[in-house]
């Protein structure tokens, strides 16, 4: 087995006096879609913040064989660890195209045009709307824009936070299909989701999180029918 | 918190210590707080430098003789930073802590109004050459004397001259800032214009420190006036004249300013555009003004320029006259008693580099203004009660120069 692309061991993190993550372990292998599921407040978003080092964390954090801990926070991004943040965090009064260009903000290579092509192929709708202000689009389109923007950064690993949040099931299905395409392009994905079955429908492996801890992990095929997943959401009586 | 209380205690201790007086022998101290820094430092420096030069000169000539004893003059000068609150405090300090014998004034009417209250409270004379507003001298104060003439008559000699020039201007645009001094000028000038039989076609005031006069100038241009009489501050005069040219406003006959024209700054800043501008001054560095210490006004101007690197104007001369007033008054009173000296000042009558110094019953001097004009880049006196030099008149339009 090859070395994991992202490797987290024994991570603890929190906000000031409030600890949120406890002894968390997680890995993503090249070419995988990994899901991190759990109900609200389980600490999923905190995990992403700890990975992108917006908040301080203890424990091992290695990406692509390199220890990120001693590096400045921007290092994760420049090394290809790209995030689609919760709530999309678009630039609302900029056009779709400008939002995408912001994804390629640091790139100086000749591949930006190609990335545009790639994004527009994955999301034909964005091409149609490229002159529209991002703030005026529907939730699904905004999510596409946010994912497209992340792809423009030429990621080695794409982390998506609550992709399905507030979106109609049809739209979620479309986005899930696109995730498969993204994997096909060779980009692994860490999908942090509340919608368990949406996540399971594309992921290879999954982690189940409850109150800051990983309670289950394994291939999706195993977890699919595991009662403990439902319990993690709706309590142990199930 | 403890530390801050300790700090307060230290302050209080300092307060207690400062109660100790200081004494001096065979020295007469003149106290002044002038604008050495801050927004009006530009004019304040005239007073600072003139006071110092006059004191130096008088001491070199032997000082002041009182009752057989010779005293040297000493200057205790503070910088009020163009802060009127600070200036009041500094005058109190000069009178009460530094125990100066007499006071010289600051620059500008609003400073003099507040600072002279200190002189009046402590009954120490203040002779000032920096404020001419009627408000200073209408309060019935006994200890304030001013060597700048009252504002109302500033345009007296100009209007007299205008009556003698051909073609005679028939319409006037009167423009004045809305501060105390300039409102007084405008008020007086209105009467004078009426008396001269001319018509006021435009009568506008503007907010102090304005930098844009295009609206007023547009009105003036539309009214096609023969002359403009303007009253305000030096920077505004400069702006006004520049904008006259920019908007191509040329009165048929002439335009005149209360301030600015006599200064070197004005000519330097405007170059040949300064030509034809009439102005006024109570003072010119003229050899006809004889002086006990400097010889004459021209000598004063020469020494002043040599020492400070710029030309004195009437502010400086007025300041020097303030110092001289004290020497005459003290020697006449034969005493350093403030009340006696005050009475002696009130009856002053001497020739100086500035003018014949004689105070009116309200404490203010009265002087005719000398009309000046910039001719080919040179400042020329033109008229007092007779023509001194030929005026360049009427002023040609801007595009015909």
């Amino acid at each position, binding site marked *: 087995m090859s070395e994991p692309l992202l490797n987290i061991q024994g991570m603890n993190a929190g906000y000031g006096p409030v600890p949120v993550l406890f002894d968390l372990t997680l890995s993503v292998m090249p070419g995988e879609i990994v899901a991190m599921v759990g109900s609200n407040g389980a600490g999923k978003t905190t995990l992403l913040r700890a990975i992108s080092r917006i908040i301080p964390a203890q424990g091992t954090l290695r990406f692509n064989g390199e220890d990120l801990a001693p590096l400045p926070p921007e290092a994760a991004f420049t090394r290809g660890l790209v995030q689609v943040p919760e709530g999309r965090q678009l630039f609302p009064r900029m056009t779709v195209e400008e939002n995408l260009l912001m994804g390629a903000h640091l790139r100086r290579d000749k591949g930006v045009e190609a990335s545009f092509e790639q994004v527009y192929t994955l999301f034909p709708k964005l091409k149609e709307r490229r002159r529209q202000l991002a703030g005026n689009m529907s939730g699904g389109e905004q999510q596409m824009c946010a994912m497209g923007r992340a792809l423009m950064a030429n990621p080695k690993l794409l982390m998506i936070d609550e992709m399905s949040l507030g979106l109609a099931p049809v739209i979620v299905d479309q986005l899930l299909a696109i995730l498969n395409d993204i994997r096909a392009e060779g980009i692994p994905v860490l999908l942090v989701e509340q919608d368990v079955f949406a996540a399971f429908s594309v992921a290879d492996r999954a982690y189940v999180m409850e109150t800051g801890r990983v309670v289950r992990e394994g291939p999706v095929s195993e977890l699919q029918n595991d009662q403990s997943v439902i319990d993690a959401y709706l309590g142990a009586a199930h | 918190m403890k530390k801050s209380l300790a700090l307060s205690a230290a302050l209080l201790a300092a307060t207690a210590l400062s109660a100790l007086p200081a004494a001096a022998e065979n020295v007469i101290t003149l106290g002044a707080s002038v604008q050495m820094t801050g927004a009006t430092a530009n004019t304040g420096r005239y007073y600072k430098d003139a006071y110092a030069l006059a004191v130096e000169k008088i001491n070199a000539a032997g000082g002041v003789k009182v009752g057989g004893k010779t005293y040297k003059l000493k200057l205790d000068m503070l910088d009020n930073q163009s802060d009127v609150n600070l200036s009041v405090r500094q005058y109190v300090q000069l009178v009460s802590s530094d125990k100066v014998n007499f006071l010289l004034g600051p620059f500008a009417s609003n400073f003099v109004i507040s600072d002279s209250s200190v002189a009046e409270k402590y009954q120490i004379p203040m002779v000032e050459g920096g404020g001419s507003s009627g408000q200073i001298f209408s309060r019935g104060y006994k200890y304030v004397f001013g060597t700048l003439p009252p504002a109302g008559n500033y345009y007296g000699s100009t209007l007299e001259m205008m009556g003698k020039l051909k073609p005679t201007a028939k319409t006037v645009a009167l423009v004045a800032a809305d501060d105390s001094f300039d409102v007084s000028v405008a008020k007086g000038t209105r009467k004078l214009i009426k008396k001269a039989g001319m018509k006021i076609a435009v009568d506008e005031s503007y907010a102090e420190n304005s930098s844009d006069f295009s*609206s007023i100038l*547009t009105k003036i241009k539309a009214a096609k006036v023969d002359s403009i009489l303007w009253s305000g501050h030096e920077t505004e005069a400069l702006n006004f004249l520049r904008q006259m040219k920019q908007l191509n406003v040329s009165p048929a006959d002439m335009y005149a300013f209360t301030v600015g024209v006599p200064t070197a700054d004005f000519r330097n800043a405007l170059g040949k555009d300064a030509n034809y501008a009439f102005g006024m001054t109570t003072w010119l560095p003229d050899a006809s003004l004889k002086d006990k210490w400097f010889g004459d006004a021209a000598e004063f101007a020469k020494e002043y320029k040599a020492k400070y690197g710029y030309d004195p104007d009437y502010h400086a001369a007025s300041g020097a006259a303030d110092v001289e007033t004290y020497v005459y008054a003290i020697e006449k009173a034969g005493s350093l008693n403030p009340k006696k000296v005050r009475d002696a000042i009130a009856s002053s009558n001497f020739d100086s580099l500035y003018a014949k110094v004689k105070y009116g019953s309200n404490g203010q001097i009265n002087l005719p203004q000398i009309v000046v004009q910039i001719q080919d880049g040179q400042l020329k006196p033109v008229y007092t009660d007779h023509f001194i030099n030929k005026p360049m008149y009427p002023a040609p339009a801007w595009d015909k120069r």
Partner: protein
Amino acid sequence: MVLAQILLNGVLLGGLYGLMALGMALVWGVLNIVNLSHGALIMLGGYVTYYLFTLAGIDPFVALPIAMVIMFCFGFALQWGVLNLIVRSKMLNTLLITFGLQVVLTFTAQLLFTADFRTINPTYAGNNFPVGGLTVSVVRLAAFLVAIALASILWFVLNRLPLGRAIRATAQNLTAARLYGVNPRVLYAVTFGIGTALAGAAGGLYGMISNLTPYIGASLTAKSFVIAIIGGLSNPFYVIFGGIFVGIAESLTALYIGPTYTDVISFGLLVVVLVVRPSRAVRAA
């Protein structure tokens, strides 16, 4: 005719007003700093242009871009070294520190340049030409055109260049901008530098129309502030329109009510705009 001339005056002067406010609006919108030292920066720009003109003999309109480069560096350093230390602090603290800076800049200028007033007075400063009965001052027209040109350039930079895109992105969503590799410290310094350069240009033009002393800063800050609020912070052209609006309002006030009332109008407008539409007034780029 008087009215037409007055309106023309208002428009031309308003363009310069707009330029004065442009830098303030940019810094406000992006850094969320209401820069009370903005007027002092305009003043400094005026002096830089003045000395380039008088000492180096460079035509003021040629000196303008040079002054802008110098002012850019100054603004960059100021943000990088000083304002950056409090940029996340409460708004009150940013107001106080920029007020302190205004004092420091003013009195440093007084020590360096003395309190004498200066004018940038090229030979053509008073030139004018008639257009259909109206008089157009060459310098004022030029100042107006420079203001429009600089607003256009700023618009172009903000909307068409990667740097401007990053500036707008940072103003709209600092978190997301950081996420995509924008270094806000550099970007803030660059933005403040641009704002300062624009202030410098305004100062140079101001020196040609009016005159410079170290103390003009405070009132120019107030004026810029009023215009930034009235024009809004979202688009350089709106700021210029805001300036023109204030210019016309002041001219009309001077014509119909009296020149001493012009400040009532501009400050009154400010209060009204804020009370009626606060959110529109202060929205970032």
